[in-house]
């Protein structure tokens, strides 16, 4: 009786394990625009993000967030955070920026991704953290104060073309805050967007 029960339990757990693994493998989203993927065009090895942030440790947090993506997926374009005294307000001007802005209280941050609908090629990104909130940049998460690095990991993921996911990737704070590190879902997403032979669109300008 007992060995049979063990076998049955083993079978159930194996099925659950396979199911969980499959579930995670599908948990990233990308954007298809008329047959084109929203992604950076080929040849964009480095993406300069001009950053105007109030403290040095915020800059370090931004670099750590960027580093997490480049470590995870070396084939994807890498962000280079460049400190800047002043940055232009978010608009389509060819300059990708990171800074602070007064957003409404329900938002921690906002990312704007400009792209060409004809090819899906990303043109530039502008990321803003809400200046009305109390932040921390020590890399530890708290339910009261959002962490610069954790939120920027999320935003830089969007900047690469990854969308909000379902299930554990909810896009909400503090509900979904975990380690702040991108994982297998994101690796799958980036591998899909930027395969090693990624040639990009020929139509981008």
């Amino acid at each position: 009786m007992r060995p049979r029960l063990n076998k049955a339990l083993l079978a159930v757990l194996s099925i659950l394990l396979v199911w969980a693994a499959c579930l995670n493998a599908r948990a990233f989203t990308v954007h298809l625009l008329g047959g084109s993927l929203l992604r950076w065009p080929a040849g964009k090895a480095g993406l300069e993000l001009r950053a105007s942030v109030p403290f040095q440790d915020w800059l370090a947090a931004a670099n750590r967030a960027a580093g997490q993506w480049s470590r995870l997926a070396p084939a994807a374009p890498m962000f280079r955070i460049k400190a800047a005294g002043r940055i232009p307000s978010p608009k389509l001007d060819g300059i990708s920026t990171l800074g602070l802005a007064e957003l409404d209280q329900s938002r921690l941050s906002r990312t704007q991704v400009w792209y060409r609908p004809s090819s899906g090629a990303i043109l530039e990104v502008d990321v803003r953290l809400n200046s009305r909130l109390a932040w921390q940049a020590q890399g530890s998460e708290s339910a009261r104060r959002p962490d610069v690095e954790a939120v920027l990991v999320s935003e830089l993921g969007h900047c690469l073309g990854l969308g909000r996911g379902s299930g554990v990737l909810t896009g909400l704070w503090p509900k979904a805050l975990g380690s702040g590190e991108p994982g297998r879902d994101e690796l799958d997403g980036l591998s899909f967007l930027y395969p090693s032979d990624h040639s990009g669109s020929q139509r981008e300008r």
Partner: protein
Amino acid sequence: MRPGLKLIATLAVVWGVVLSSGPAWGVVKSLKLERLSQTAEMIVLGRVAGTRAFFSQDGSLILTEALISVERCLKGTAVKEIRVTAIGGRLPEKDVGLWVPDEPTFQPGESALLFLERDSEGGWRVSGGFQGKFNLVQGRDGWLARRSDLADQTLVQVLRQVEGLVGPR
């Protein structure tokens, strides 16, 4: 411990780790249905009759205005139509688009349950970013209210909850 039980225990631990590992995607504050229902000035069930994308007055954003044909109003002044604006959209004639990940998007013909609030211009926008829009999809046993971060619920269930929170009309 017997080898079979050891294997089961190992699998259980691995399964737990796999399921619990979720990265941070925190950009809007999580709002429960209770909070959404309280803060929304208007709650409507409607169909997207059409959309129009355009540059904002200062040229810094692309906005999309959705014309919603209201089928049922659960909170606020009853109207037949309402215009809701969201940040983002695309202008194919200029070959430029703006994607703002946490903003709701509208597709002509789709039906949705919308929690709305006033924007700074006095128009309407969706409360709490994407959280204030439940897409209605046809399920096997009727309409489902769908939001990417939640499990599907039947529309009847959601409407009952909302009516319980805002009171009957």
